[in-house]
């Protein structure tokens, strides 16, 4: 910049001044022009990038993901708008059958699917009739340990159990319609598929309190009972046919109370092998004639005691001949402390129960509270556990889902845990408007600068 001291005088000075001024102008103009060019480049680059992203989006492999409560909506999007190449679903609870089937159908529409569900727990439900004249149902639920199993049917809540080891079993007097078992938020449903035709029970013994009260209690419960109660060599009291045919066409189970049953030992053995049920109690539980059928051998009898107030299990007061030397396939069903009181075994197609208690009738007569009802229920449950009862299939059209987790795996395949990808920034839909803004700003600034310079 010429200083005022060096300022030329006259036309030359003017020219110099003008020359000096022009060079500054040229310099500024040059810088501005450069800036304009840069802006032009930026704008074009942004445009090119936007076009590239658009093409890229058209051809990229979309890796879609659906989780939790949004699964249904996301599947709807996949089915209508987006059609990703692959879709991964993360379940936080077992899907309903329609959702599961929808997911199974997506591959046929071009979306390969995978799923995972770390929080899902397997469960299973089965409902079966009990061989019992009052037609209760036995409900088996498979569930993880410490899970709470809530069982209900169409008439409401039935029971709840905290499963300890693999599941729980509930025997309930009646079920109405489909049974549901909810385990950790997963609900399985099942129905009873068949009913049982219960036949009479045959009680064999001499006229004694044990024979009398077993017979009476089973009758009171609702069983049809036939019996032979020896009185003298000339004969005894008969309930039902005088010469009972011990086979599965006539009886569901035989209860032998004492040694008088020995004359039927052969028939009973055949009966059991055919599928019949046999219970040996008191003296009959130690008869050698039944040894091949019975689960174990009978030990020394302990003395009976009083039915005291503090006893929760009244059978503790009964005389017990504990069962020992159990056969390998015998199942201890009831214990008193470390002694086996009742044991069971399958023989042929039938089942055998050996009861180590003696004079069980004392519980009915002298037990506390509703002892007569409890005695009745116990004896009936024991008979039901061995009784032969042919099945009839029930027509049942209810839709069921007894093993929801298994069904899920069976239909969708095993779970494939997959981490959610971080995602390419270029895939971020918010990037496009930013590019657009950069492009338009650059163009505008470039145009404004040019115009203000007086350039076209």
């Amino acid at each position: 910049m010429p200083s005022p001291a060096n300022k030329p005088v006259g036309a030359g000075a003017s020219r110099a001044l003008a020359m000096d001024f022009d060079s500054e102008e040229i310099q500024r103009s040059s810088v501005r022009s450069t800036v304009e060019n840069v802006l032009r480049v930026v704008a074009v680059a942004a445009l090119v990038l936007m076009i590239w992203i658009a093409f890229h989006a058209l051809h990229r492999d979309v890796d879609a993901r659906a989780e939790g409560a949004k699964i249904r909506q996301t599947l709807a999007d996949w089915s209508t708008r987006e059609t990703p190449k692959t879709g991964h679903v993360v379940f936080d609870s077992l899907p309903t059958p329609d959702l599961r089937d929808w997911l199974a159908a997506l591959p046929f529409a071009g979306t390969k699917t995978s799923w995972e569900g770390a929080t899902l727990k397997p469960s299973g439900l089965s409902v079966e009739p009990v061989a019992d004249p009052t037609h209760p149902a036995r409900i088996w639920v498979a569930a993880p340990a410490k899970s709470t199993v809530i069982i209900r049917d169409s008439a409401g809540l039935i029971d709840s159990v905290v499963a300890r080891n693999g599941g729980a079993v509930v025997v309930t007097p009646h079920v109405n319609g489909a049974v549901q078992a909810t385990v950790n938020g997963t609900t399985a449903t099942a129905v009873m598929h068949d009913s049982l035709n219960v036949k009479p029970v045959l009680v064999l013994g001499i006229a004694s309190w044990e024979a009398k009260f077993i017979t009476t209690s089973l009758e009171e419960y609702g069983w049809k009972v036939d019996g032979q109660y020896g009185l003298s060599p000339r004969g005894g009291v008969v309930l039902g046919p005088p010469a009972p045919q011990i086979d599965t066409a006539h009886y569901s189970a035989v209860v032998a109370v004492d040694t008088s049953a020995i004359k039927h030992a052969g028939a009973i053995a055949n009966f059991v092998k055919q599928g019949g049920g046999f219970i040996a109690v008191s003296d009959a539980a130690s008869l050698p004639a039944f040894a091949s059928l019975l689960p174990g051998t009978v030990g020394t009898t302990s003395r009976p005691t009083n039915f005291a107030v503090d006893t929760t299990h009244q059978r503790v007061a009964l005389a017990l001949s504990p069962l020992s030397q159990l056969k390998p396939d015998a199942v201890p069903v009831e214990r008193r402390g470390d002694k086996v009181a009742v044991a069971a075994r399958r023989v042929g197609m039938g089942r055998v129960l050996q009861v180590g208690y003696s004079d069980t009738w004392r519980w009915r007569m002298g037990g506390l509270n509703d002892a007569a009802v409890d005695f009745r229920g116990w004896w009936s449950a024991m008979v039901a556990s061995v009784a032969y009862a042919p099945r009839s299939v029930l027509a049942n059209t209810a839709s069921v889902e007894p093993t929801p987790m298994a069904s899920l795996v069976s239909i969708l395949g095993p779970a494939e845990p997959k981490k959610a990808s971080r995602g390419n920034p270029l895939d971020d839909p918010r990037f496009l408007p930013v590019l657009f803004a950069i492009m338009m700003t650059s163009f505008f600034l470039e145009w404004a600068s040019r115009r203000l310079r007086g350039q076209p």
Partner: protein
Amino acid sequence: MVADFVFATAMYESGDWESASLLPANLIDSIARYTSLPVAPKGADVSLGTDQIFDYPFVWLTGHLPVRFTDAERKNLKKYVERGGFLMLDDHNHDMDGIFHKTAKEEVERLFGPMKTVPNNHTIYNCFFKFSDGPPATSHELNGWGDNLIHKELHAVMYGDRIGLLYSNKDYSSEWNFHPDTKRESTVDVTRFGVNMIVYALTR
């Protein structure tokens, strides 16, 4: 081994429960004579007011004196009969105006309501020996002792057809209160109805 049948006599606080002391042996003898049931050779005296009573589902109760059960005896009696026990209650006075009958009937009906008449074709009269005319008469009745009546029927607390408590004004306690060996002298064994009672109790 099957537990023996034990003939039990009920002890109650208010009366002379032991007044027919030979009756148990007599009926035990009869059971052994006519059946092959295992039976204990001696009877048991069992307190009606204790839980002991429930170990004996057949019990004989008699006396001459007023019957006034204690609360415990009353409670046990009700439970005993409802659960399937068989109690034979016999008026040793054979007197419907007598104090045993009046008080015993009051006690029973207070617990169970009015007793029913046992029809003479009931199972108890034909379950072993046949008594087509109903309960056999006793010599006391025939000799005009007591109320000078021959009671044609027995009464009972019944559940449907099942007898839980059998009530008699016929004084079988006197009729059967003799040494069993005396039966040798008789042509007809008067204790046979007692056998029916026990067979009925054991099988019905």
